[in-house]
């Protein structure tokens, strides 16, 4: 990543003063500069992305220091069957009654960068309820809490890297990045690989969401293909008769190879 800064004039954070049009313009200017600098083609999420206001004071200014991993970093934590109950993968059965909302299944595989399945590893998800409200003290959005939905799930991947969650489709919600800012519906995913260096936290989005075009967090990903790979695919074969609709979403971690080659 070049040492260049893409928004040096911007210093305030969380002021919620910019309009959506101003945010869109900032993103367009950065895209143009990135294309000019040749920062394209990889699924890199820049840490320095001023349209996402909270990043302004929280991204390192120094380039990441390239280092060979030591043995401990080539391994990662192990999670066994005792860590996760299979029922934790169903977010609709955690309370006395079913939650409000559109019941969905999300399934897919976790692979590493060499295409190998990541088996027996921990996946954690968390999300807002159908009204767009998190069960979190700091979430003061006026949408209702659902007493039958916590929005937290866990599972371990199968031998072929497969995971499967049953939940409800989260709602979009407002935030204070800029005036009239709304996050597209999304589910947070926390993923472990075999190595500590593969650790990933990301967000899964839903196809056709009109808010994706306005969201600086989604739009911060440089490469268009990489952005699209954050969006799940509707899959009618996952949809189940009178039960739920279905989405498919695969997650790819980095490879384990030690030598890095310049991407073409």
């Amino acid at each position, binding site marked *: 990543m070049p040492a260049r800064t893409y928004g040096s004039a911007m210093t305030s954070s969380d002021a919620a003063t910019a309009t959506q049009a101003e945010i869109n313009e900032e993103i367009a200017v950065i895209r143009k500069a990135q294309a000019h600098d040749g920062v394209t083609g990889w699924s890199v999420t820049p840490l320095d992305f001023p349209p996402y206001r909270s990043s302004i004071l929280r991204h390192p200014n120094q380039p990441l220091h390239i280092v060979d991993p030591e043995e401990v970093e080539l391994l*990662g934590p192990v999670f066994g069957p005792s860590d996760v109950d299979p029922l934790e993968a169903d977010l609709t059965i955690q309370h006395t009654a079913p939650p409000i909302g559109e019941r969905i299944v999300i399934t897919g595989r976790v692979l590493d960068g060499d295409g190998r399945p990541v088996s027996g590893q921990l996946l954690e998800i968390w999300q807002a309820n159908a009204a767009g409200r998190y069960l979190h003290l700091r979430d003061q959005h006026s949408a209702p809490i659902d007493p039958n939905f916590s929005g937290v799930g866990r599972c371990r991947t199968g031998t072929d890297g497969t995971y499967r969650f049953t939940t409800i489709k989260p709602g979009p919600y407002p935030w204070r990045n800029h005036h009239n800012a709304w996050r597209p519906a999304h589910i947070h995913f926390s993923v472990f690989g075999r190595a500590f260096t593969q650790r990933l936290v990301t967000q899964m989005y839903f196809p056709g969401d009109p808010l994706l075009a306005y969201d600086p967090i989604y739009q911060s990903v440089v490469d268009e293909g990489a952005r699209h790979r954050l969006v799940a695919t509707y899959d009618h074969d996952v949809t189940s008769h009178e039960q739920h609709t279905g989405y498919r979403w695969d997650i790819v971690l980095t490879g384990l190879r030690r030598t890095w080659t310049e991407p073409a």
Partner: protein
Amino acid sequence: MSEHPPTAGQTVGPFFGFALPFAGSAQLVPPNHPSAIQLVGGVFDGDDQPVPDALLEIWQTDKNGASIQEGGSLHRDGHTFTGWGRAATDNEGRYRFTTVRPPGFIAMAVFARGLGHRLLTRVYLPTAVVDALLTTLPEPRRATLMAAEPTPGHLVFNVHLQGPRETVFLRFPNEPA
């Protein structure tokens, strides 16, 4: 480009507190363990303000330097050392782990609202030998990776996301640029 480009990271956001930390997640060993040490510190932004919505994870060998591949972190039994822990920062941006002292360093991952992708770093024990990474760092940068030990068994390591005391964050050869 790889046939399997990695999934892009996205921020952990502000609302992970009800989901990711769990009972005992920051206690790799019980506080009364004979070899227990405290690893404490704060996370700070570019204005040197505390970051109250950061999440830290640590991963380490045991006190003899042996790699660990033991499950059980999510339901600790009080005896099995899994080498992994997780702590959210509090309202003052501070965190606390209870663990044992490994010979070299403790690997650390940093997540926060505002961070588009996790950051990785190393917490070197004051007694650690100067290794390949420390050798390549000029002194003011190297110091950002060294934990202080003001009293025995009480390690202090602050994470500065930005600014003159910015922590050295790492990229490994398996990661895209």
